[in-house]
């Protein structure tokens, strides 16, 4: 292989004292600390990094900038690692991607020779005849597609996030960015400077600005030293700003941490990407950008070849030629695409070194080595017109072709922010024409290339950003007039070859004719061209292809480049891992005060929104038995359930009753102190959305409960309405303040009496639907006599810090009466026996009050409640379904499941919502929606159960158990 390691001082990023051994494609290599995978491999003479997406052609470094199209490798379970950015570590095991067999012998490489049968969008054109055949072809196509591999056993490493704040954020640590940061910090702004590379400097660190070659480095050292010394500047290296989001919200990824940086103003100084020269076989290993050659030499101490041909249209090509010469690379020829002599010290220096310079010429073909693993020679021909060359060419033996035909600005962040660019035909560049307020740009991202102008522009951007961030600034720094934007970009560096393999997009293996074909086929809008050809849709997202593909599209459609426009640039700027985006996965968990008691008692806990609740107590293996035991305890003795997750709202003030009158369907104005009342909430559409109990403790005070899942929304809704009604009422969400239990069963009073001294508990003194405040085992409590489960029962609310003590006291007091803690499952059966609905189970997103058969819960004497008006419309329109209780006609029939359908004449008319086998009743009971004319008790209707079988059910008016409600009122 022809690449090799250079001695120091080449390789500024290397620590040669620290050799590192790693593996690639099954072999072991040694590089130095600071090497990227790509540079270390190049230093070892490894010429091929990957195989291309479609044709499986060998590929290697193109830009060495960390954004290469074909430098993606797999590291263990991590796919698509950019080998030109990721640094080597001891023991790293790297494998190539998209290879069938080995990198050297890829069986899929045969596709390359079939290329002409695989036109752009080929998969749209075939594989579907005869009908059904795509199913088989798809497998093949899918297997060929994709790059990296997923390992189902890959560990989920530690990733986290951190917010950062700055007055001014500067993205890009090149000359422009450093100048901007210094200027802003100088006036007192707190600056964060973000650079994706391991050191500051940008192009200063690898480009050549003068024949002697030292200017960049010395300027870099000077600026970097100032930046690093400035206390107002925080420098983030190896940190990628991966997008711009609204209000200057910048995701900055460094390692496994996502920093979310909020700045008051932003300077984008992200530089530019060098662009490819398009010619036959321009994708082969050994063809690279001038900046890539320079990065390899200067950053990584890698000699990129032994004999080079340089194709250039600007001074940077000559700079690269000088670098190559100094690195001991023979330069066979410089082909300058421009016909006129380009005056410039760099060009002169190259000429002085005796390098032949051919003007008005370009490389038209890289002559491949066998197996396409490198190049043997370059063909150079005269340019005769736009994209045209003479047939006659010169063949220069070489192993390296370096191209320098211009740049495309790194405007990703500017696009995300809504900035606009437009194509300047004169400079053949996209230039920024409009920036949103408080966003500034400087340096080559704006098309400014002259170094003094870059720095001037950087200073001015920093100045503007500091001003926008509210700092007092002096006079605006001046920017030299000549921004050096001419003579950088060649307007048409595209030389299609009759035999093709003249690549525009290296990710997707798109050649010139692919783009032209797509356009000819009608995909002539730049966005359609992109989507049909997939140009720009691969991992490097058009970095290397966008400019040339727009130029081609423009020419083929007879429009200007500006009219043609570019495709939308979208985040992320560079790849980002799912793990980094996920971070620590904050998933709040709420526990009731008695949570640990349930766990200790062997409860199976179930998720209820953010809460956990006991489903039942005991082993899963005896689930049914556990539930039965809990149910029977409630029916026959006494049970205790934790209902702390119920919402709790304190509604206080002179208008408290009026407020509830408007919020709930019932009437509360005349509710006496000491009484509880059902509370049903509807929305504007009359849909049932929540329910609870309103307890009046004072003229001015109601304590209202809400469902576990509805609490937050109920609170929000109450505040929403009162923000408009302006009643004298205050609502406080006290859900977490109160622990609550329901003590229920015939022996509940006896248990309670044991720990209650100050509340008279007799049925006469404390009847059903009344509330009291008192002390239980010394714990202040609100006691509500309600009966969701249909037995004598007390819902007891105590301060949450004392919930566990209450639980302990009740369990102890209940021991002699056989108290049993019960869970949600038991409660669901118990309440069903009483026919109580559960909002969200027995109602759905459109159930209104009449459908739920709850007209009894509406007070008709009120002028208003939320939903009243719509309910009136529903009442007028009549019902289409109704919720009823039912039992099975034939008790031997299997129980339907919840959500089995009610069928009439082959039509769906409803469904079951709750079904359970009642132990005490010895039969299956349930709730179901049926057609309105099926709702009369005694009517039979049909339910389709498992296996499609129909069974008959009979409407029975709930409550199924204790219809006279005697037991709860005991």
């Amino acid at each position, binding site marked *: 292989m022809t690449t090799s390691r250079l001695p120091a001082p080449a390789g500024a990023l290397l620590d040669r004292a620290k050799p590192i051994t790693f593996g690639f494609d099954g072999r072991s290599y040694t590089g130095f600390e600071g090497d990227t995978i790509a540079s270390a491999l190049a230093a070892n003479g490894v010429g091929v990094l990957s195989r291309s997406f479609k044709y499986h052609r060998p590929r290697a470094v193109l830009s060495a900038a960390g954004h290469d199209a074909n430098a993606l490798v797999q590291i263990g379970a991590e796919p698509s690692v950019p080998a030109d950015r990721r640094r080597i570590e001891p023991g790293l095991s790297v494998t190539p991607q998209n290879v069938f067999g080995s990198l050297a012998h890829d069986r899929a490489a045969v596709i390359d020779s079939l290329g002409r049968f695989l036109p752009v969008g080929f998969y749209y054109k075939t594989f579907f005849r005869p009908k059904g055949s795509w199913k088989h072809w798809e497998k093949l196509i899918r297997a060929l597609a994709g790059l990296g591999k997923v390992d189902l056993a890959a560990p989920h490493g530690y990733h986290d996030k951190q917010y950062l704040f700055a007055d001014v954020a500067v993205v890009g640590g090149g000359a422009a960015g450093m100048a901007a940061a210094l200027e802003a910090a100088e006036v007192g702004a707190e600056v964060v400077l973000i650079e994706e590379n391991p050191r500051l400097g940008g192009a200063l660190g690898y480009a050549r600005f003068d024949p002697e070659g030292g200017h960049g480095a010395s300027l870099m050292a000077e600026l970097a030293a100032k930046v690093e010394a400035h206390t107002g500047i925080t420098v983030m290296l190896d940190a990628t700003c991966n997008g711009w*989001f*609204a*209000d200057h*919200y910048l995701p900055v990824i460094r390692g496994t941490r996502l920093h*979310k940086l*909020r700045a008051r103003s932003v300077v984008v100084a992200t530089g530019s990407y060098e662009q490819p020269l398009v010619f036959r076989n321009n994708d082969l290993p050994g063809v690279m950008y001038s900046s890539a050659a320079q990065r390899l030499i200067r950053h990584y101490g890698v000699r990129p070849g032994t004999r080079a041909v340089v194709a250039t249209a600007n001074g940077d090509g000559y700079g690269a030629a000088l670098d190559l010469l100094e690195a001991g690379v023979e330069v066979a020829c410089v082909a300058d695409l421009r016909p006129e002599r380009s005056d410039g010290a760099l060009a002169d220096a190259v000429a002085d070194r005796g390098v032949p310079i051919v003007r008005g010429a370009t490389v038209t073909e890289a002559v491949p080595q066998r197996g396409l693993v490198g190049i043997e020679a370059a063909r150079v021909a005269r340019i005769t017109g736009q994209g045209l060359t003479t047939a006659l060419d010169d063949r220069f033996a070489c192993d390296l072709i370096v191209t320098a035909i211009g740049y495309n600005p790194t405007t990703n962040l500017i696009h995300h922010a809504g900035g606009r660019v437009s194509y300047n035909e004169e400079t053949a560049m996209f230039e920024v024409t409009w920036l949103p307020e408080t966003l500034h740009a400087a340096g080559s991202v704006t098309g400014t290339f002259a170094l003094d102008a870059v720095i001037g522009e950087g200073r001015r951007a920093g100045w503007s950003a500091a001003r926008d961030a509210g700092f007092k600034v002096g006079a605006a720094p001046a920017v030299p007039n000549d921004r050096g934007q001419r003579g950088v970009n060649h307007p048409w560096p595209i030389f299609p070859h009759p035999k093709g393999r003249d690549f525009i997009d290296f990710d997707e293996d798109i050649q010139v004719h692919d783009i032209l074909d797509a356009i000819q086929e009608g995909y002539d809008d730049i966005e359609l061209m992109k989507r049909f050809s997939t140009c720009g849709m691969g991992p490097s997202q058009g970095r290397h292809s966008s400019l040339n593909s727009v130029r081609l599209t423009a020419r083929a459609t007879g429009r200007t480049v500006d009219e043609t426009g570019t495709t939308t640039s979208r985040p992320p700027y560079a790849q980002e891992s799912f793990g980094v985006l996920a971070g620590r996965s904050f998933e709040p968990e709420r526990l009731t005060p008695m949570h640990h008691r349930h766990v200790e008692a062997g409860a199976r806990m179930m998720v209820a929104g953010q809460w956990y609740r006991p489903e039942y107590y005991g082993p899963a293996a005896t689930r049914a038995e556990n539930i039965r035991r809990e149910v029977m305890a409630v029916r026959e003795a006494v049970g205790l359930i934790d209902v702390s997750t119920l919402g709790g709202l304190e509604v206080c003030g002179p208008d408290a009753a009026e407020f509830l009158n*408007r919020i709930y369907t019932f009437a509360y104005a005349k509710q006496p102190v000491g009484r509880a009342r059902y509370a049903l909430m509807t929305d*504007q*559409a009359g849909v049932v959305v929540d329910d609870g109990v309103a307890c009046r403790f004072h003229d001015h005070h109601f304590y209202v409960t809400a469902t576990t899942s509805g609490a937050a929304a109920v*609170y*929000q809704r109450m*505040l*929403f309405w009162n*923000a*408009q*009604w*302006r*009643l*004298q009422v205050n609502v406080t*969400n006290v859900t977490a303040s109160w622990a609550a239990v329901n003590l229920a069963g015939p022996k509940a009073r006896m248990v309670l009496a044991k720990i209650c001294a100050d509340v008279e508990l007799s049925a006469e003194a404390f009847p059903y639907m009344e509330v009291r405040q008192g002390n239980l085992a010394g714990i202040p409590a609100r006691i509500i006599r309600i009966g969701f489960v249909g037995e004598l029962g007390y819902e007891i609310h105590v301060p949450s810090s004392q919930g566990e003590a209450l639980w302990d006291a009740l369990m102890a007091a209940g021991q002699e009466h056989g108290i049993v803690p019960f869970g949600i499952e038991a409660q669901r059966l118990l309440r069903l026996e009483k026919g109580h609905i559960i909002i969200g189970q027995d109602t759905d997103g459109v159930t209104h009050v009449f459908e739920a058969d709850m007209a009894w819960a509406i007070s008709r004497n009120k*002028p*208003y409640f939320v939903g009243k*008006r*719509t309910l009136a*419309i529903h009442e007028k329109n009549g019902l289409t379904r109704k919720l009823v209780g039912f039992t099975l006609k034939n008790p031997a029939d299997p129980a339907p499941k919840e959500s089995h359908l009610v069928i009439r004449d082959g039509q769906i008319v409803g469904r079951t919502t709750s079904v359970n086998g009642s132990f005490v009743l010895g039969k299956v009971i349930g709730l179901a929606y049926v057609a309105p004319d099926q709702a009369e008790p005694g009517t039979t209707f049909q339910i389709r159960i498992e296996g499609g079988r129909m069974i008959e059910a009979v409407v029975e008016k709930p409550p199924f158990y204790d219809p006279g409600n005697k037991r709860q009122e005991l």
Partner: protein
Amino acid sequence: MKILNCPLNGPRNISEFVWGGEVRTHPALDCSDAEWADYAALENNTAGVVREWWYHVPTAYWIIAERDTVKDVIVRTYPARELFKDRVVFEAPAKQEGR
């Protein structure tokens, strides 16, 4: 992430807020069914500056924001009481059936 300037808490990530939709004017209780549907079921879905409800979750605070739904810019925010100044009283509409 947008920043919404809460009149109580100052500039905050918009994720601290819940969007409450357009501010609407409640029709008179004796409005027609069509007027009622217009209020309760239909949306202006304005492209441009809209006056909207926003709820700051940590402080349980409903505010009003004027937001440009095309530019994604929040023009102005203020407490709801600037718009809803007075106690609202609902009187039963005079009985008239059939509207």
